[in-house]
């Protein structure tokens, strides 16, 4: 479990980072918190020839609230999000969900941008961003662009990110006073990736957004359940999950995921605040 040889570079600006990442021959790869990438390298599942460390880029760090939007730098760490008053006030869903992401040591290093770029199907962040109607901002040598979270997560570890591009910022609408949030996940042990989990935003009796994680090949919105909720409340939403593309894994077959998704949804609604 030793990583194959690689070159390590620590650029001082986004421009420099993008130039380094353009080296496709070396399979240049950005390094954020390293909490997923380093294990993959040690397992030799990933073998980038060049690691471009984003940890020196002040431009990618920190967060601010501007015009009803929370703008979060890609290199902001889970621990920083959890400690932030701005987040507590404006994205209460993060406060419900992030304590379930891994363990303290990993949250001290792991970044929101890393989670977005990795797109692990069982990760919390992508589902939260779907529910929160967030926008992912990216930058490449060709320029910058922004995509709705809904169009960003395409499949198993597959995103709209193009080669040579990096995630720069996550933009999340600040909470409206009418909105409530719910979150629930099942994990065998605290901090494990979820067996099944769900995040909710409830705008009123006729409006909610539901995002599941850990049940399919990516974080997914349950649009039929959202509609069913409007017409028949929580029981109707629970019954409207069959069309989701459930995938089994080591801990649960697809059928079990389907069952747990319903229970998680019920509990998330019970706990909304």
């Amino acid at each position: 479990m030793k990583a194959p040889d690689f070159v390590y570079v620590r650029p001082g600006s986004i421009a420099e980072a993008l130039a380094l990442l353009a080296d496709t021959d070396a399979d240049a790869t950005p390094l954020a918190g390293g909490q997923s990438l380093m294990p993959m390298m040690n397992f030799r599942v990933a073998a980038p020839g060049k690691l471009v460390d984003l940890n020196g880029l002040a431009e990618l760090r920190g967060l601010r609230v501007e015009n009803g939007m929370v703008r979060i730098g890609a290199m902001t760490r889970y621990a920083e999000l959890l400690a932030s008053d701005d987040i507590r006030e404006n994205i209460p869903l993060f406060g419900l969900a992030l304590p379930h992401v891994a363990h303290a040591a990993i949250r001290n290093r792991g970044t929101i941008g890393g989670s977005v770029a990795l797109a692990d199907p069982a990760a919390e962040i992508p589902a939260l961003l779907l529910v929160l109607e967030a926008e992912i901002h990216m930058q490449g040598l060709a320029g910058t662009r922004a995509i709705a979270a809904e169009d960003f997560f395409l499949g198993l570890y597959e995103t709209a990110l193009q080669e040579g591009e990096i995630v720069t910022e996550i933009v999340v609408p600040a909470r409206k006073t009418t909105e409530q949030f719910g979150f629930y996940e099942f994990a065998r042990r605290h901090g494990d990736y979820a067996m099944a989990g769900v995040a909710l935003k409830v705008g009123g009796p006729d409006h909610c957004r539901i995002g599941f994680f850990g049940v399919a090949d990516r974080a997914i919105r349950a649009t039929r359940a959202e509609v069913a909720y409007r017409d028949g409340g929580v029981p109707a939403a629970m019954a409207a999950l069959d069309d989701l593309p459930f995938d089994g894994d080591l801990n649960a077959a697809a059928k079990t995921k389907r069952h747990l998704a319903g229970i998680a949804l019920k509990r998330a609604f019970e706990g909304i605040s």
Partner: protein
Amino acid sequence: MNEPLHIFDRPNSYIGRSVPRPDARRLLEGRGKFVDDLQLPRMLHAAFLRSAHSHARIDGFDLDAARAMPGVVAIYTGKDFADHVTPYVGTLTHLAGLRSAPQMPMAMDVARWQGEPIAMVVAQSRAEAEDAVAMIDADLHPLDAACDTESALDADTPVIHEAFGSNLAWERLVEAGDVDAVFSRNDVTVIKRTFRFGRHTGVTLEPRASVVEYDPSENRLTYWYSGQAPHMMQAILAKHLDLPEENVRVVAHDVGGSFGIKIHTYGDDIATAVAAKLLKRPVKFVADRHESFVSDIHARDHVVTGRIAVTADGTIEALDFDDLTGIGPYSMYPRTSAIECNQVLNLTGAPYKLRNYRARGRVVFQNKNLMCQYRAVGHPIAMAVADGLVDEAAAAIGVDPAEIRRRNLVPDDTYPCVSASGMKFDDLSHEKTLDRLISEMRYDDLRADQATCREKGVYRGIGLVSMVEVANPSPMFYGIGGAPISAQDGATVRLDAGGALHVSSSITEQGQGTNTILAQIAAEVFGVDMDRVKVTTGDTDNVPYGGGTWASRGAGIGGEAMLLASKALKDQVLDVAGILLQSESESLDIRSGSVVDADSGAERISLRDLARTVYYRGNELPSDVKPELIATRHYRVTDFPFVFTNSAMAAHVEVDVESGFVRVLHFWAVEDCGRVINPQLVDEQIRGGVVQGIGGALYEECVYSEDGQLLNATMADYLVPMAGEMPDISVFHVETPTKTSVLGAKGAGEAGTGGAPAAVMNAVNDALRPLGASIFQMPMSPERILKALGKV
């Protein structure tokens, strides 16, 4: 402790106290000396190519690209070792009929499990060795595999060792009384269940590790290893590498946990020794976590179908079961993989008065990693089957689980006695431990709480287990069958010129506190402060001959040897003191580093002065006085094959019946390990053991695909129990010292692991009972519980 006065009930007393570990600070400061910390001049590093298939013919290798890689010094395939190491076979003569095929460190013609080493790269660094391993082109031809235990003996299952004609490695039948007659009676209730126990493994914090140095000028091999039994390894290395035994030195410094994983012969370790000998340079091999999962022995893997017959008043009339256990493609060398099944046959139902007993065991080969002795060998199966059936029977006839145990446990006043399977028991306390358990856990209050909770749709359950634990084995365990495994241990105690004690012992420190209890015993029995005792263990050049750590034997056997040696040295020192002081030695004693007047406690001469007189100014002694300020004693258990420990345990759980998740709310263990030398260390052993037991019951499983691929060989996917999910564990002691020794210590290392799975399983089933559901498969994962509930 309210036991009669022993020789160690003295002023500076340590036995029975929670003395802190003298080595704790060193380890906490990061100054531990683990194998990977060792850096020798000219040392090389090994990495292995392991079979990617569970069963494959090895047609050849193309090594050119690998050889060209930077840093590579040598590459070996299995056949390269054919002339340098002799094959080994994991059989023992007392396990009649057990068969296994000869094994070499690396597969030569056929690889028989995914993870079996097939080629080895030795390079300047481990990273370079791994780079080169990735470049080896192995021509492997996959063969049909036999992976499933339950179909291993079917006619259409591939036979792993053709010469044997089937995949059966061993079978044994134990029979007592007339089982069939009981089951045909019409006044008994019969309960039949099938239990399934998945594979799990030890997950030691420090993986297996070896550094081997060979000095051709003296034909001498030194093997630093992270392991449990240095003298056993010395004998094995000498035999298979053709070296005089005395030319092999085995050293085990700090060891980061063993749990039975590190007491076997692993091909990669032996290959490391062969490479060091061939290259005449030190070679290091430290297993990485992935290698640990696919090559450290796995445990359990049983399917047991059992039935119990009870009368209406709850008397257990008969127990009958069939155990099928899968051990991988070989029986592990040298302890064999039949012992696990043998323990199940010996121990199931052993706490109960049982006259009619039939136990059939079959051990089968499979194309999976080897299964062998792990903490609490066979115990979790024996206890879960017996106590699972007992609870099911109790429910069927409407008797409370605590009550049915009271009616059937072997009474405390009937020892010595012999069990239905022929085990000799003495000094056990099933009744006392159960009574204490019931009162400490407030059993009746928990039952009341259970009823209240059920009304609210909350499903809590209480599970009990009464158990025996094998400890302090005699030579009847291994030595009798021809294994180079010592059941006796030695201790040497030496007074140095400064008045301190240097002690050494053949038992070993794996992190459980062996060195601490050795110091406690020596300090107290001899009569010095504990900080004046320096302990050496784990070095075949420097300690007496003995067995090491296994079968909960360190304190009971090695501790007794230390007691005897310390007592002997004390007598020798008092003889010298009597001459120097012109007093009767019987009137003298040694306390806190001085020879004192036994009655008044007044100091007569310090040990330092005494020792200096002997060592420097022998002229002051009469010429016929030849003091020996060193003593060695050995000890083995003679009257019994094993000295058993017993305990009663309980789990309180809550089952989330919507999701299948189980939360263990609390765990209690009342343990009788005889004399408790250090309560804190014993409690740590019990708690750690319980956690591993809960791991096996709820979390840990080596998940294989149908074709024998281990699917969860990472710490992310293999679920070791973690602190957040663990309950508080309350530990209590009943002390019934064994009469086989002065010290009276039995063993405490494995009880928690052996008992906890049964208690947790019974608790889960107690919770599920009102819903008409039950589960007898471990680990009891949420999905399996949902299936039991009919929800998925």
